[in-house]
């Protein structure tokens, strides 16, 4: 992808020109949209769940699937270079997990003394 440019002085420049338009394929957006709506519907059925843990699993399970669908298909990450996977999913998840894990013993496990003002 190297294009030959010349300036006023007639000197040759070789400028790397990245392709601006996309190189990736297109999944069937209608299907994905439909799936997303169905998943939204499922996550609203939480009231039918017998136990709180099941509700949490259902709600976050659907949320993660929805997010994965959006990232992979709408944002076309599925077609992208591995570097983008690492930096946008891997690193972010690692950071957030580290953050959560490092703070966990200091908040849920500690009760504050709430005195009136």
């Amino acid at each position, binding site marked *: 992808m190297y294009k030959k440019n010349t300036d006023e002085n007639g000197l040759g420049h070789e400028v790397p020109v990245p392709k601006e338009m996309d190189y990736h394929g297109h999944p069937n957006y209608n299907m994905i949209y439909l799936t997303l709506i169905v998943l939204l519907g499922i996550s609203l059925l939480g009231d039918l769940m017998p136990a709180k843990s099941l509700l949490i699993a259902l709600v976050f399970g659907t949320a993660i699937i929805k997010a994965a669908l959006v990232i992979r298909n709408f944002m076309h990450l599925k077609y992208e270079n591995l570097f983008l996977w690492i930096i946008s999913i891997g690193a972010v998840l690692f950071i957030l997990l580290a953050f959560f894990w490092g703070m966990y013993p200091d908040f849920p496990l500690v009760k*504050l*003394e709430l005195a009136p003002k």
Partner: protein
Amino acid sequence: MKQILPENISTYGGEVDSLFFTITLFVVLAFAISIAALIIPLFRYRYKEGRKSSRVRGIGMKQMRWVFAGMLVMALCDFYMLYAEHSTWVKMEETLPEQEDFHVVITGRQWNWIFTYPGPDNKLYTADDVIVNRMNSSLHVPAGKNIIIDIKAIDVIHSVFFKNIRLKQDAIPGRTITRWFNVTKPGKYEIACAEICGVLHSKMRSYLVVQEEDEFNRFLSELYAEKQK
């Protein structure tokens, strides 16, 4: 000039001090070796016109061996240090002594320490607790006893610092943090606030007064009598 660390009066302070000398040994050793390795080539490989430098680029284990050896020594020192300090950490921070002799509350506020002694019933957090709340007051504790302290703060973060005990702990609003110490040498020592807490942070000083048991009991009964009045 006197010794490097201030006088130690607590039972576990000696372990902290010996940890200091262990780390210092490693640090001085590592520093001496590195500085020597830094300075020697400056003389040995001084610039000579026309001479070519060696082509060693640090590729492969053989060329990297000194770097890896250095890292290994570093790692060994690190792990020895972590191993050496861990029991002290467990003793000072993670556990409390089995026998609890005296329990007292230290509360930080802007800008003095409030000391709460248990009342005549020897229990804290009851109506007869004696609260000493004034500037430059002192915390009296008996010598040779396991003293448990509850550390609290009212307004902002403070940090209670007994430098002769080698103990420091932040006091956080909303939390009660429990630590302990056992001091052996009677005397009067300083307590400082080590976390910036506002304008008069520098004046936030109290004293730790370590007394023999009978003297301490006399102090307590005087305190109770004062409260009765």
